[in-house]
């Protein structure tokens, strides 16, 4: 399959008073079209820095970001980026929040709303279209934020721990919901999480990252058949992958503590 997103020797160093601080070791990463790829790692492994670089919000100190083989380094609006917080605008209804990306791209409001409304209804926000975000639960807010990202109509979507703040039950529901969206929309997804099990359950491929400096320790392909069900987590293959991930992360735990 064609490579959709290519990080070509991308690295990041910040200048600090005590000298240069290495946030991300130059790394190469190729993500094929339509794949669901997770980055797993402790805090401080440079996941967010990488996301900011891919989204064009941060200029890498070395390397290039290629989308469809085209240099997209430092250009904004090329990928959908969902930050950890839902960042819904309190003064806009759910539907007007969801169309924000289209609105910024200059699409007429009426057309944007017409496009968004059926999707809100299909993906679990029916009845909430004209409510304001403050009357929504955490799960519903995340749904709205994710739909906003999807409706921005980019091939690549970056999700930065979207379910990190949700309770366990809601988190499971949201994972199912995300799988449905992913198979419907056929986007290329890069997903950041702390939760190893979540990463294995959702992904085609996991990149386990380490800290100081941020780097990819190992890439683990997940060949588990789809559609996956909850009991997949009990199969020997799943458990083997989980053990491998935990082992990689555990080795680097002391370092992470030191950093904290």
């Amino acid at each position, binding site marked *: 399959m064609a490579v959709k997103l290519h990080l070509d020797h991308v690295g990041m160093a910040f200048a600090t008073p005590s000298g240069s601080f290495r946030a991300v070791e130059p790394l190469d990463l190729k993500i094929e079209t339509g794949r669901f790829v997770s980055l797993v790692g402790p805090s401080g492994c440079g996941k967010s820095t990488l996301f*900011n670089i891919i*989204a*064009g*919000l941060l200029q890498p100190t070395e390397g290039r970001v290629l989308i469809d083989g085209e240099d997209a380094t430092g250009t*904004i*609006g*090329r*990928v*959908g*980026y969902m*930050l950890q*917080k839902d*960042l819904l*605008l*309190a*003064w806009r209804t759910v539907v007007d929040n969801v169309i*924000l*990306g289209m*609105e*910024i*791209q200059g699409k007429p409001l009426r057309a944007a709303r017409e496009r968004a409304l059926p999707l809100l209804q299909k993906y679990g926000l029916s009845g909430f279209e004209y409510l*304001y975000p403050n009357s929504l639960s955490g799960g519903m807010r995340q749904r709205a934020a994710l739909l906003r990202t999807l409706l*921005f109509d980019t091939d690549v979507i970056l999700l930065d721990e979207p379910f990190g703040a949700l309770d366990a039950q809601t988190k499971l529901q949201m994972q199912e919901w995300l799988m449905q969206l992913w198979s419907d929309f056929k986007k290329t997804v890069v997903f950041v999480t702390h939760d190893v099990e979540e990463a294995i359950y959702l992904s085609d491929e996991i990149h386990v990252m380490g800290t100081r400096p941020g780097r990819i320790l190992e890439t683990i392909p997940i060949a588990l058949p789809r559609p996956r069900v909850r009991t997949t987590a009990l199969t020997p293959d799943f458990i083997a992958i989980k053990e491998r991930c935990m082992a990689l992360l555990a080795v680097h735990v002391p370092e992470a503590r030191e950093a904290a």
Partner: protein
Amino acid sequence: MALQDLATQDAARAQPAAPTAKPARRLPVQKDWPAWAIIATQIGILIGIILLWEVSATKGWIDGFFWSQPSAIWHTFVIFFTEGSAWTDISYTFRSTIIGFVIGTTAGSLLGLSFWWSRNYAAVAQPYIICIESMPKLALAPLIILVFGLGLTSKVVIAVALTIVVSTLTTYAGVKALDPDSEKLFYSLGASRWQVFRKLVMPFCMPWIISVLRVNIGLALTGAIVGEFISSQHGLGRTIFYAGSTYEISLVWVAVFALSTLAVIMYVAVSWLENALRKGTRQ
């Protein structure tokens, strides 16, 4: 410590609790009067004060020359509103207040919002803003009158001087409270700076801008009145000052009464505007 604790516990055990002699106490209950009773009492008190004032002045308990008396005030009131300059004065004060309020609030809000555009510019401007904020602006009033003349303009300028800083600082507080991640979201969607300003910064800061409206209407009125005190040809402030210096105490009272009424009306109108705006911006 521990030993002492044990000792006191022992003592407590040695003396079994005395039977409680305390009478059972009930929750104090306050009975609410009906609304009409409250209003009737309020009116009663007002009438009482007016009667007492009138009687005291007639009997010579207080000096009627300095305090005037309700009957004389009423008389002046009728003359002021029928033959006098009441409506000219009220409209003069009203106009300078409203114009000053609108200009000061708008300019202040825009100035506060403008700090979002450049951190350097905000950093350079900040000490000046704080200086102007801490300076008693009314002290500048005589100078403003000299520069802008005796007419309406100078009163408007004083009202603007009082209101603009409050609006600037409050709006700037809103700008500073903006979550940088929200800006990041907008930029990740490919927004221009102008789009971020219009679709994020402005609506986000609206609650801050709105919150100063009621404060500012009071300040604008103060500014207008002080301007009229110093030098003016019309206005309620000018009437009060003029009547005071010519010992027309009843006219002072009438003008103060008219001024209070004007203040209350404007305050209520601005509160209404504030609520309407709040609903419009969903905060």
